[in-house]
């Protein structure tokens, strides 16, 4: 079970099974059923695998995303590229907007709350969204603590830059992980860095015995239980998507060949010249990520991609990935 799929075409062995890290409790009901357990929270992410989750800012966008084959949408007021451009404090979206997007599509709807802003998360849960992204794209509300995600019935996805960060989020109850990348840049370089860092971190665990895992946990600031799971499974114990800077079908396929389970596309679709066509192409590229002849076909004639940003050109204090820890 290689955490990193072979690079290049063909025969890429996908990472396998997801296990349950934290046996979430969930709420027991009179009829013997249990809601909100970690199994159903992580399970929804498993259903999203091999798919593309798209940022949308209107109900119309959401319908286009669904029509293009998105497996879920992220409801937002502004895509990251606009948040980056306009500056100011970025907060949870207007519930009105989120509700209109939920009404427009049948696929799962995700929404973002600020890091540490557990009341925004409570509001999103009350709205009945299917997944909450505790996201560095919004302005953090707490510089020390992320949200304790265990008590929520709704699952959370969180960003990471390396294995330690992923493991901390999982320990807090995240049922899905994504790379942070650098959102709103159309530049995939940071997502690649983060995916490779997670892979390298997991590979490093493979030869370790338990005592060494405990030491490694100390070094990378990760709970040892999560590392034990990663060691056993040869991958993260929850679904892991790529996010942050994916703008082309080739970007999506690159991330898939690096071993992620699926991709988020933020600004890349609706900041491009022909959103529907690009969205369809990225969906196809995520399924046929290891078939270059299909990638060549779907990459043709898509019109202009979003304008990209070089990472060094961004002032250090405007880097979104540095938010959260």
């Amino acid at each position, binding site marked *: 079970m290689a955490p990193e799929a072979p690079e290049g075409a063909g025969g890429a062995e996908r990472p396998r099974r997801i296990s349950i890290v934290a046996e979430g409790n969930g709420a027991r009901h009179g009829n013997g059923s249990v809601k*909100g357990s970690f199994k159903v929270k992580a*399970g929804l992410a*498993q259903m999203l*695998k*091999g798919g593309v989750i798209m940022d949308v800012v209107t109900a119309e966008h959401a319908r286009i995303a669904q029509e293009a084959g998105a497996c879920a949408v992220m409801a937002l007021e502004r895509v990251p590229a606009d948040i980056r451009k306009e500056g100011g404090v970025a907060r949870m979206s207007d519930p009105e907007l989120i509700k209109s997007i939920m009404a427009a599509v049948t696929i799962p709807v995700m929404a973002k709350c600020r890091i540490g802003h557990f009341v925004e998360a409570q509001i999103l849960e009350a709205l009945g969204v299917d997944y909450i992204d505790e996201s560095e794209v919004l302005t953090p509300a707490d510089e020390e603590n992320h949200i304790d995600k265990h008590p929520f019935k709704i699952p959370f996805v969180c960003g990471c830059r390396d294995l330690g960060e992923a493991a901390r989020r999982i320990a807090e109850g995240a049922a899905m992980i994504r790379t942070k990348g650098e959102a709103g840049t159309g530049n995939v370089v940071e997502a690649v860095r983060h995916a490779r860092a997670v892979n390298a971190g997991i590979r490093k665990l493979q030869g370790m015995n338990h005592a060494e895992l405990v030491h490694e946990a100390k070094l990378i600031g990760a709970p040892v239980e999560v590392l034990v799971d990663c060691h056993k499974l040869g991958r993260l114990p929850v679904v892991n998507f790529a996010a942050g800077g994916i703008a082309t079908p080739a970007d999506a396929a690159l991330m898939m060949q690096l071993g992620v389970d699926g991709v988020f596309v933020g600004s890349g679709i609706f900041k491009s010249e022909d959103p529907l066509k690009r969205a369809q192409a990225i969906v196809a590229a995520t399924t046929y990520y290891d078939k270059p002849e299909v990638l060549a076909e779907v990459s043709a004639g898509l019109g202009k991609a979003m304008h990209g940003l070089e990472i060094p050109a961004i002032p250090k204090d405007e880097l979104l990935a540095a938010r959260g820890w």
Partner: protein
Amino acid sequence: MQGAFAEHVHALDAVGARTRLVRTRDDLSGLDGIVLPGGESTTMTMLMERVGLLEPVRKAIQSGLATLATCAGLIVLASDITDGMSDQQGLGLLDVSVRRNGYGRQAESFEASLKIDGMNGHEFPGVFIRSPLVERTGDVKVIATYQGHPVAVQKDRILALCFHPELTTDLRLHREFVRLAGQHA
């Protein structure tokens, strides 16, 4: 195409079956059985249609290919779909009416123990995730219900479930599918 296929592969490996991912028409040849996994039914049918896989899969199942369909897979097989996308069309091979996300959104996803007809031993752990609700059944055999609604049905060599055995360690339904697949082989 999209969805929780890796989990099915793992479960089928565990019961000793050989597997292959079906993404093109060529992948269909020589199969004894096919799994239509959980995922997003809109995404799956759209991709299958776009790459010309919908018709070949329909023909293969019609001519007796053993089929295990879970959750979205059941929607893809169903003859009637409500609350789907307006033009959502599936394979129409299973005489049931299903309501997409009929049990509600993710907050309503649940786990419950199920009694399955013909299955010995303890109850089966049912994991329901934004599950479809079966509102009507026609020419199929209902083999499990939950709160009065069918959650597992069988029609000849098709086994269709609202829940996700691939997310559990209980391999009994995968074993049953492999047995069905072996009957013709």
